[in-house]
């Protein structure tokens, strides 16, 4: 048992942090938000750091790194409020594509690794809310898809989509398909999210697609993909919270009322202790989710849901309380803190909110408990 990072992992962290500090300042980020919420230059920058190759197998031009490296990267991207969908394009997409046949892998993985292709998961449907097994998009036997997917990350900037669809009718199993952006029948409507990032509605009308994973394993691979996304998001949230807490501590030590720094007020100090508690519990569960990603599905899903419950509570508490402790300045657009708050808020509603995952934990409860249960 060992929670130290290796030297390589620390170097990776430093490299990402240096990039973010230099090329993703609050002002640079503002400019990206104004321009729509996705920057291809940033994506190229991440690729330049090797991040898009990180999770791609070495056989396809990648680095073949594992979940811990992904976590390190996500923490730093979270700290810098990076909006480009690295978890989606850099971690989830390679994991799903690695389940496809060799031709598809050889076609897409090198381009993902090089940063030339941005592929994202498009799974959200109106009727499903947070359930992955509810899917109304239909696929014909010759892989033509019809349906609507919502809130697809950076949807109108992506090159292709991983789309779950029912293969052969409403009662059939869920298969996963690859849909190219320029395929026939694809319509995209892009918009910004509240955290400044980019998303889109993706409409498919008899759209030709490539089968990635058949209906026998489609749902299982989708669940795994979402678990990867949740673990990545947990790390991102830890990075964001860590920074927001530091900003808040700085503010409390600077802001004066009644002639003294407000950091001297015990009620605020105790709030800060509660915030620190949530941060460290969240960090612990981020590690937990990451280190359980390789477990068999049942154990992995339980662990990831446990992590999301903790993260959901922490993101809400830390976000709300750090905002509150800032007073008026905390709710203005010009202050960076409010953007941490919005990002943390939105993350709770991605891949299942706290109540959803509490239901999962409740349902999957065993007689024993604990990290190794």
């Amino acid at each position, binding site marked *: 048992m060992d929670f130290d990072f290796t030297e390589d992992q620390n170097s990776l962290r430093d490299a990402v942090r240096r990039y973010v500090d230099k090329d993703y300042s609050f002002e640079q980020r503002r400019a990206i938000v104004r321009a729509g919420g996705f920057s291809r230059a940033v994506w190229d920058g991440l690729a330049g750091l090797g991040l898009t190759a990180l999770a791609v197998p070495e056989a396809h031009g990648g680095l073949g790194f594992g979940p811990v490296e992904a976590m390190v990267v996500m923490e730093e991207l979270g700290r810098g409020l990076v909006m480009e969908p690295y978890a989606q394009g850099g971690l989830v997409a390679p994991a799903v594509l690695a389940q496809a046949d060799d031709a598809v892998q050889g076609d897409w993985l090198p381009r993902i690794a090089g940063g030339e292709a941005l592929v994202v998961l498009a799974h*959200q449907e*109106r*009727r499903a*809310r*947070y*359930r992955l097994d509810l899917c109304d998009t239909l696929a014909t036997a010759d892989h033509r898809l019809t349906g609507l997917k*919502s*809130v697809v990350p950076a949807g109108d900037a992506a090159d292709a989509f991983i789309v779950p669809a029912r293969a052969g009718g409403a009662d059939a199993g869920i298969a996963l398909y690859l849909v190219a952006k320029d395929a026939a029948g694809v319509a995209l*409507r892009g*918009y*910004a*999210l*509240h*955290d400044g990032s980019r*998303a889109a*509605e993706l409409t498919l009308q008899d759209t030709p697609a490539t089968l990635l994973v058949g209906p026998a394993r489609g749902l299982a691979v989708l669940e795994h993909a979402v678990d990867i996304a949740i673990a990545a998001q947990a790390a991102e949230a830890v990075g964001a919270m860590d920074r927001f807490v530091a900003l808040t501590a700085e503010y409390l030590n600077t802001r*004066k*009322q*009644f002639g003294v720094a407000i950091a001297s*007020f015990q*009620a*605020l100090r105790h709030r800060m202790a509660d915030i620190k508690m949530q941060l460290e519990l969240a960090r612990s569960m981020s590690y937990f989710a990451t280190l359980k990603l390789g477990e068999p599905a049942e154990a992995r899903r339980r662990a990831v849901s446990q992590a999301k419950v903790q993260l959901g509570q922490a993101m809400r508490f830390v976000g*709300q309380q750090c*905002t*509150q402790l800032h*007073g*008026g300045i*905390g*709710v*203005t*657009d*010009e202050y960076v803190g*409010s*953007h941490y*708050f*919005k990002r943390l*808020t*939105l993350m*709770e*509603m*991605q891949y299942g*909110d706290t*109540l959803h995952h*509490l*239901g999962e934990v409740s349902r999957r409860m065993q007689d024993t408990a604990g990290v190794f249960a």
Partner: protein
Amino acid sequence: MDLNFTPEEQAFRADIRRWVAEHLPKDISHKVHNALRLNKDDLQRWARILGKQGWHGWAWPRQFGGPGWNAVQRHLFEEECALAGAPRVVPFGPVMVAPVIMAFGSREQQERHLPGIMSGDVWWSQGYSEPGSGSDLASVKTRAEKRGDKYIVNGQKTWTTLGQYGDWIFCLVRTDPSVKPQAGISFLLIDMKSPGVTVRPIIMLDGEHEVNEVFFDNVEVPVENLVGEENKGWTYAKYLLAHERTNIADVNRAKRELERLKRIARAEGLLGGYREDARFRDQIALLEVDIVALEMMVLRVLSAESSGKQSLDVAGLLKIRGSEIQQRYTELMMLAAGPYATPFIHEAMEAGWQGDHVGAAHCAPLASHYFNYRKTTIYGGSNEVQRNIVAQTVLG
């Protein structure tokens, strides 16, 4: 002890309800019921409709042109307006500065300012907070130096809600920097069209322009705009703070919004729908209990005010609980929509927008409202300050 309103009170309520139903413009109540954006015209139209009836200053005594209602009547009026979907009356004129002018202003000030406030024609703003003084109001730095028959005002106010529409602003200004902070403050009425007044927008985290910074650069203010005595402003400010009563709990709006929450949860299938969610239902049930308890607390205060037999010092509790509940219903509405609350389409908050929504139309304003309502535990005396006050009542 009786929970029910008297027949007279019920008749009063029925009259108000009828009047509001007849006079509240449907386009405005539509916006309120759906949390769409209200513009200046919406707010002022409603203010003027109330003003014409003599109700824009619904808490005013008869001698100043108000209806002279008692505490219960005021509550019933507020409740009927809220439930019918009327916008909250912008309080700075009729609720905040008017009582100060009535209590401490000169006859001339009363005659000059009160009619415009009642009619809804003159828009007032509040100039209290400054960049360095939030909770610590007594530390105001904006200077007013007397030169002959004028004050020369220099300094900056901030968090001035809807100040971009303001005709006049009432300000706490420092007229004597040599004495202890509270003793050197005066209460000044300033025409915002005066040269040297600059209003700069502050964009809030939801992207809306709701508050402002107001700069004063050698602004000349005639001495007749001083309310009461020079250097007594702190007394008037405290009077004003004590004046706002049960309405700070905003429980009537909470009841209306709880109904909206249930409508949204129903439309999302979470309540009695195809994805009925007992966990989410429980959260609504808990909030419902909180709202009933808050309403009972408000009614207790009303009763005490009416009869004068008890003194209930719970203003701090009402503010704390009311604001927590406001935040909670906005949070639950947002969570009900989930991923469909995350898109930020600025135009979608306009009534009659013809664009394509992401998900149901009711999803569009939910996250914006959640973000916006974080202010409720900060402004008007933060909940931390309120807890200090409550603790004082219990512990001395």
